[in-house]
């Protein structure tokens, strides 16, 4: 049985800090510092989880921070690894993936049908009959997956921090600490990270009784802790490796994104399980797992162990475990024990029975607990049965090399070591220690120091590189620690319940490369991402292919190395939000502020329901006067002798005839003739233009214009004035009356005709006024310094009070412009729309010598296949047609609605739709399929819906100043 041991020299638990927690509804005691698995083992709870597919009982396997054998949920967090989760006082845990609890999991019966659930079962079984697929899908989705996400869990925001340093050392074990010591000999900035709560790595569990090693560890840790130039990050794992040595370290309080000049990988190895029948029984675990349990948490994982040996480490561990009182029933050595040097002799001298050249044939259980193993000799003879309550496996290692692959290192299988080792590292990265195939403790120290010396030379603080110790020449892994059994249940991948047979079948069905086998069998695709499965998978595939392991290849591990909670990636969810100079007003007036790109814009000023607010704002503009904040428009000023050539190249229209102080509507397309952006261009002088761009695309237009100028060598200065200039649109029949009270500009239609621009004082501020009519009423778009934004806005509201002025929002503006048939780019156009399709052909001057999109538009002009039309319908406005509803013609899609609203002017629902060319005649009836799958008839109508002759742009009074 498992139990807590007397105090161990390096233990991480606090004996005097008892706590209690709940697992699967039962209360247990633990100690501060315990992880869930160790605390459960202290209570002799060896069955801690159920497996993914067959719901077999499972316990600790690797206990190396990636043990996906035991995943639990705390209620708020799920799929938490029990070898990482520190128990907290009063917290309650449940195993994931059970039906009716861990002990009585009803789904365990699935394993009785394992014989009829071959690899690829889902692919083979559930694709027919087709009509049943929705049922199968629901069933599979219920059975698949692990923990359930609690969507009502409190949202905890964590911070992401950037950390720039000279050297980053990943891994605080023997080699990593040696590297850190070397780095501290120079005055450089070092970050060392380890995923464990304490630095030390194998110092703590492989060298626990080696006093000189402990002294080395303590000295380096003291040095690190007293250093001002080193940052020590425990409980931080390196999640991935990205360009130029940037490594996100995921810690309990968020991600520390390290950008280092050099990176030293001292990530060590993943111990690999042996594959034999029932190797997943709780109580069967890796030797290093047992050692970590003993030395970090003072847990004896069992009382009577069989050690399965494929290397020296197994013997060393057996001797160590004996010291703390675990009986070693036998060491079963996969090979000849005299290759193990002195260790075999010591073990024998300590009275341990050694069974050479043999493997475990089968582990057996009674009442769910491991009771014995039976032995099979390598020549196939069935051997004795040995009673035990624990099997400790040490048969081989795989590099913790995920980050290396991501960095671009090349790794190869070394047949001497029987291990994958790095053979080349990209510039600025180094690896050290057992990861590098250096096993001897003193060599590991030298290797870490040498890697650091090379890194220091690389960043220029040291001129000489130290000599690297040679790789170990004795294998520490067994080439084939796999013992297939006629009755199966020899698990290769514990996450996915994959047996040897599954891989064999996959291979026979033609999935004969590592990448194909992985995807078909799902080996390595579970939560531990193959850390304890892939190496054995490769060995099995090599055997099947009759190839050397080196020739089989490996799958590429991609980020992340451990599962990263989504909240860590989200961080504080900081994103830019731009407010206009009039924001305070919008806020105070209870505006419905919505994000439009990066900007916050008032949709409507909600007094009452949004719909009545929009209608009220609409009526105000149509009948009196309103103002809308359009500071979000892109505002670009261009100066220089080549302004006209630049604009002629960037936009489709011609600017030559545009007189000074006049404006025109402009739009640009890309090389394929697709509409990109629109706005207004105002000519201020021959070599001076002021143009606007759409709110969400302004920065892109500045970028594009600058690129064109640079590409063609135009002499133009392009100034992005978007944030310097506030803008508002004063619109409505009484807008001239209101404006005249505040300005010295002569507003008479003789002096200030439609589409003109005038400069002057408005409310005491130097401003530009543009007479443009997006909303279809007499109006002035007024641009002025942003610092005066609120003041000018307020002055207009006050000046217009008698005229009934008020602010209107984006929603009312959308309705107003829709009646006028004006487009909104990005709503009535999309990433495929050309000017001819939206009736903007008049703005394309194909005769210009050169402009962006000329060649495409020349080709597209005669190929018009669809066109934007207006439509009107008497259908009930409450049964609203919505944007993106489809036009259906003869059972097929013939277009879609791009804008739609109830028009108070037409007293009917109006809209715009992009439809096939054959359906564009006025009077044509279109069928719109609405959300409830019924159709609504609409009629193609002439546009605009409102004021087709632009009469509203007339200033009725000859002198508005008098009228005012």
């Amino acid at each position, binding site marked *: 049985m498992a139990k807590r041991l007397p105090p161990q020299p390096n233990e991480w638990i606090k004996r005097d800090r008892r706590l209690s927690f709940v697992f699967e509804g039962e209360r247990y005691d633990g100690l501060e510092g315990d992880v869930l698995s160790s605390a459960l083992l202290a209570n002799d709870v060896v069955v801690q989880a159920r497996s993914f597919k067959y719901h077999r009982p499972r316990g600790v396997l690797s206990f190396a921070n990636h043990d996906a054998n035991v995943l639990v949920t705390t209620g708020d967090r799920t799929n938490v690894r029990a070898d990482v989760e520190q128990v907290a006082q009063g917290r309650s845990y449940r195993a994931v993936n059970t039906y009716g609890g861990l002990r009585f999991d009803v789904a365990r019966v699935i394993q009785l049908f394992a014989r009829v659930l071959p690899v690829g079962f889902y692919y083979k079984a559930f694709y027919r009959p087709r009509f049943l697929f929705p049922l199968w899908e629901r069933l599979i989705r219920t059975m698949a997956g692990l923990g359930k996400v609690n969507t009502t869990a409190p949202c905890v925001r964590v911070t992401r921090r950037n950390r720039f340093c000279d050297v980053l050392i990943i891994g605080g074990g023997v080699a990593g600490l040696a590297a850190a010591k070397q780095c501290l000999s120079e005055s450089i900035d070092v970050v060392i990270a380890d995923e464990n709560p304490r630095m030390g790595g194998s110092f703590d569990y492989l060298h626990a009784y080696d006093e000189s090693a402990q002294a080395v560890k303590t000295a380096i840790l003291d040095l690190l802790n007293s250093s001002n130039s080193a940052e020590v990050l425990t409980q931080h794992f390196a999640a991935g490796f990205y*360009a130029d040595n940037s490594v996100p370290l995921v810690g309990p309080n968020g991600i520390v994104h390290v950008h280092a000049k050099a990176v030293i990988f001292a990530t060590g190895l993943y111990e690999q399980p042996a594959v034999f029948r029932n190797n997943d029984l709780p109580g069967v675990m890796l030797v290093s797992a047992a050692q970590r349990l003993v030395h970090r948490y003072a847990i004896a994982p069992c009382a009577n162990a069989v050690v399965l040996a494929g290397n020296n480490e197994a013997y060393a561990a057996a001797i160590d475990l004996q010291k703390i009182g675990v009986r070693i029933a036998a060491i079963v050595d996969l090979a000849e024990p005299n290759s193990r040097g002195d260790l075999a002799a010591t073990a024998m001298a300590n009275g341990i029975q050694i069974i050479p050249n043999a493997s475990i044939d089968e582990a057996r259980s009674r009442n769910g607990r491991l009771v014995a193993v039976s032995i099979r000799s390598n020549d196939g003879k069935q051997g004795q049965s040995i009673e035990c309550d624990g099997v400790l496996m040490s048969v081989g290692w795989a590099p913790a090399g995920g980050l290396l692959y991501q960095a671009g290192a090349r790794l190869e299988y070394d047949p001497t070591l029987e291990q994958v080792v790095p053979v080349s590292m990209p510039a600025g990265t180094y690896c050290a220690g057992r990861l590098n195939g250096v096993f001897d403790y003193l060599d590991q120290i030298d290797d870490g120091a040498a890697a650091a010396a090379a890194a220091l030379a690389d960043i220029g603080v040291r001129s000489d590189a130290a000599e690297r110790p040679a790789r170990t020449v004795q294998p520490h892994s067994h080439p084939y620690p796999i013992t297939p059994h006629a009755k199966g249940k020899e698990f290769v991948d514990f996450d996915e319940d994959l047996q040897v047979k599954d891989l064999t079948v996959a291979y026979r069905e033609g999935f004969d490369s590592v990448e194909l086998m992985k995807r078909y069998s799902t080996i390595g695709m579970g939560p531990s991402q193959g850390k304890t499965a892939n190496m054995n998978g490769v060995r099995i595939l090599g055997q099947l292919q009759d190839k050397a392991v080196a020739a089989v290849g490996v799958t590429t591990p991609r980020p992340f190395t451990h599962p990263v909670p989504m909240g860590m990636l989200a961080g504080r969810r900081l994103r830019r939000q731009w407010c206009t100079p009039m924001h305070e007003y919008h806020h105070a007036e209870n505006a419905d502020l919505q994000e439009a790109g990066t900007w916050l814009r008032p949709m409507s000023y909600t007094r009452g329901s949004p719909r009545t607010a929009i209608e009220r704002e609409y009526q105000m503009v149509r009948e009196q006067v309103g103002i809308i904040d359009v500071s979000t428009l892109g505002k670009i000023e261009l100066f220089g002798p080549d302004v006209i050539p630049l604009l002629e190249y960037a936009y489709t229209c011609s600017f030559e005839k545009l007189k000074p102080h006049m404006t025109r509507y402009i739009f640009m397309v890309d090389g394929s003739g697709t509409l990109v952006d629109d706005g207004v261009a105002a000519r201020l002088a021959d070599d001076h233009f002021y143009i606007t761009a759409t709110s969400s695309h302004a920065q892109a237009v500045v*970028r594009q214009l600058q*690129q*064109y100028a640079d590409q*063609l060598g135009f002499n133009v200065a392009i100034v992005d004035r978007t944030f310097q200039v506030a803008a508002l649109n004063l619109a409505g029949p009484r807008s001239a009356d209101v404006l005249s009270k505040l300005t010295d500009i002569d507003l008479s239609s003789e002096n200030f005709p439609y589409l003109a621009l005038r400069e002057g004082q408005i409310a005491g501020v130097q401003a530009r006024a543009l007479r443009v009519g997006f909303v279809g009423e007499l109006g002035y778009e007024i641009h002025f310094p942003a610092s005066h934004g609120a003041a000018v806005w307020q002055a207009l509201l006050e000046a217009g009070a008698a005229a009934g002025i008020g602010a209107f929002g984006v929603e009312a503006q959308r309705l107003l412009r829709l009646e006028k048939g004006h487009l909104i780019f990005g709503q009535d156009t999309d990433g495929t729309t050309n000017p001819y399709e939206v009736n903007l052909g008049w703005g394309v001057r194909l005769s210009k010598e*050169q402009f*962006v*999109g000329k060649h495409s538009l*020349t080709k597209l002009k005669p190929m018009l296949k669809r066109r934007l039309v207006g439509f009107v319908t008497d259908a009930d406005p409450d049964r609203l047609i919505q944007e993106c509803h489809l036009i259906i013609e003869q059972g097929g899609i013939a277009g879609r609605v791009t804008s739609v609203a109830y028009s108070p002017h037409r007293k009917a629902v109006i809209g715009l739709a992009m439809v096939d060319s054959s359906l564009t005649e006025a009077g044509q009836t279109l069928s719109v399929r609405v959300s409830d799958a019924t159709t609504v008839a609409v009629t193609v109508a002439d546009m605009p819906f409102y004021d087709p002759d632009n009469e509203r742009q007339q200033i009725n009074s000859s002198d508005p100043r008098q009228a005012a």
Partner: protein
Amino acid sequence: MKYIDFPTLGRRPSSEFVVGGIIDPEPAELDGISPGEWVFNRDSIPMRRTEWWYHTPTQLWFLVERHTATDEVFGATLAGAAIDG
């Protein structure tokens, strides 16, 4: 994060940039190729080539010489610098 040395800017993270690719200006005449070919058929052979990179905070375009397979950067120059004088 990738860091690149730029003239006038110094060492900057790639996140501050918009990559504009290798696009050439649209010529007045297409020499015997269709518009579709000019727009869509891009030579994407991995190689060392010059790309347009736009630095968003300063609104400056740079020409960056980069190997598109290895992501190695060989240098950057300010675009349009030639016409400043």
